[in-house]
């Protein structure tokens, strides 16, 4: 169960894995996520489904190595299996009836934005993709985005690839040039989604963001992933992960995301040291 069929390092810190999971592949839709455990005694982490192959019965996840669990996940090789995998969880992204959409992806968030762009493209929506990365070495999924976009803008913070600047700069340029979108879908770091939402608010364009809160069960049981949306408490796992970007309290979400940062850093170092010992 949950065998790793394919593993590709997309860049030094981002890895793609295709995993055998027929029930999840049969049901999954863009915007939904899975919870997984790498090993016995491992923690449960949520990862968005980046792609799925219903015929083959597999799903794809793309993750950035940020802590102990993603580090351990990245040490799993093709042919090995994950301890646990459950899904598809959360509400699928709403894409019905959209005529023209700007899909904004930042960093590893692009991996989550991609299946939505793909689905939009497949249903005939005009897709403008704006994908941004810190620097050239971190660029992922460029060809994939190109294949499903009517227009694609690549930006890097340092200008080492594509245009220099942030995704908000590129989006503003398009908006100022008169592009009219039914909706903007922004997925990336919370800070990026916050500034995209602030920008589109000025242009009065509906904006959907995908919140990657800390979760344990992913089914509405613990409430750990709660966030404030339009003054109400919502659970990212069952009410989302997609929310109206103009209503999300991003500052609170950013703070809540740091809850276990010290623990995570310490754990990550410990795990790295363990793997180093194995290499020796």
């Amino acid at each position, binding site marked *: 169960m949950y065998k790793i069929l394919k593993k590709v390092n997309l860049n030094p810190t981002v890895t793609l894995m295709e995993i055998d999971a027929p029930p999840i592949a049969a049901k999954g839709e863009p915007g939904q996520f899975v919870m997984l455990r790498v090993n016995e005694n491992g923690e449960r982490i949520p990862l968005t489904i980046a792609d799925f192959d219903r015929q083959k019965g597999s799903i794809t996840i793309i993750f950035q190595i940020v802590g102990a669990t993603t580090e351990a996940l990245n040490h799993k090789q093709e042919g090995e299996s994950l301890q646990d995998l459950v899904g598809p969880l959360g509400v699928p992204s709403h894409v019905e009836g959209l005529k023209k959409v700007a899909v904004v992806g930042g960093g590893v968030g692009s991996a989550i934005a991609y299946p939505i762009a793909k689905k939009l493209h497949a249903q005939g929506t005009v897709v403008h993709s704006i994908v941004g990365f810190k620097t050239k070495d971190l660029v992922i999924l460029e060809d994939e985005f190109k294949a499903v976009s009517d227009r694609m803008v690549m930006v890097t913070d340092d200008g080492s690839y594509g245009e220099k600047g942030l995704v908000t700069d590129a989006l503003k340029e398009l908006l100022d040039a008169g592009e009219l979108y039914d909706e903007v879908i922004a997925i990336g770091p919370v800070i990026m989604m916050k500034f995209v939402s602030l920008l589109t608010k000025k242009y009065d364009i509906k904006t959907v963001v995908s919140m990657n809160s800390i979760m*344990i069960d992913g089914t509405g*049981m613990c409430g750990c992933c709660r966030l404030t949306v339009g003054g109400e408490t919502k659970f990212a796992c069952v009410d989302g992960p997609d929310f109206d970007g103009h209503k999300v309290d991003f500052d609170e979400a950013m703070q809540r995301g740091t809850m276990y940062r010290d*623990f995570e850093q310490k754990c990550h170092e410990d795990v790295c040291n363990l793997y180093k010992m194995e290499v020796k």
Partner: protein
Amino acid sequence: MANMSLKKNEMPAQDPHVRNCNFQEVALGYTEAMALDEATRCLNCKHSPCIAGCPVEINIPAFIMKTAQGEFEEAYQIIAKDSSLPAVCGRVCPQESQCELVCVRGIKGEPVGIGRLERFVADRHIETIKEKPVKPESNGRKVAVIGSGPAGLTCAGDLAKKGYDVTIFEALHTPGGVLVYGIPEFRLPKSIVQKEIDVLKELGVTIRTNMVIGKSVSVDELLDEQGFEAVFIGSGAGLPTFMHIPGENLKGVYSANEYLTRVNLMKAYRPDTATPIKKSSKVAVVGGGNVAMDAARCAKRLGAEEVYIIYRRSEEELPARAEEVEHAKEEGIIFKLLNNPVRILGDEQLCVTGIECLEMKLGEPDDSGRRRPVPVEGSEWTIPLDTVIMAIGTSPNPLIKSTTKGLETQKWGGIIAEDPSGKTSRDHIYAGGDAVTGAATVILAMGAGKCAAKAIDEELNAAK
């Protein structure tokens, strides 16, 4: 001649100041001598009020008589006729408000320690009986059970014994439901739950973990596409409730579900596990039920210096079992009764710094018959804290209702089911336990699972 001692044999327990630093079981269980002595306190009265006091009507005097004669396995078999989880219920059943409440010995002195005897007999069975249960001959008919808590385990076990091909679907990665994610190790060792689950597997029950019904697969798909002839929903009451007061989204505010899941299911207290939990020094648990006691006692064991229980009524109204309250007090939990939180205070990093409470006094009785707490004007005061745990109740998860057409529920989310059969508004779909009643006890859920198993068997037999 019956043993006329007015007091129960005391339950041996770990010293409070030792146990509040470890997660090992608090109550150590009767020795054989204690069990024999306690069993002779039973008068074996003709009208046996204890049997009616038991939600699953265990023949209590009969099992105690066998115990008194030292025939422990026979005693166990008597309990097992009506209860599928004796070792669990012997530990977590609220006997003081059920069988022991009506025990004749309780009129003058303490009732017979029925729960303690049940536990002794069940533990003795686990220790001594090594032969595995025999898998009954299959009748080839498939039944699906959703959830592996007490209701689901019981329903599955009873159906498997009748020869049904039972599959349990569990959303989490470990079966056991609230017995595993909710009730802490020091009150119910997980090895005991595991043994009950192993028995089910021996009986031929398939357990599929990581299956969220309503997401991974729907109830209708189970019935229409996967060949199940009936479905039992025992999905519990897993949705946490918050107070909707300012500051509840600060860092350091947990639902009891989250806190207990991190500790019990994910074993965050052990250094060899990866799940984090906040290292707290001052903790307040809001609520007065067993879950609140569990959360407070976990926080203490994780090293918190001060742990408070904040409850808006008085000690008398505490919904937790008296034994749990007593244990919590012994372990140094501080009770702030007749207090209600009005807001949680935080700093600029959004970390909890304290809780503001309002003192309460008891007014007229409300619908529940309990005296309604009324705020005392101008009595606001603050406790400095770094962690707040909300333990004010849970409700059924709406996932199954929202994905099963025609399944009727109460306004608050409980699935509407006939008593005692568990029949719902949909054909071939049964429900029981907390998913129907809202958060209640292990024994009631177990009873509902038993009744539904019987009803399912009757329906499927009639349809043959």
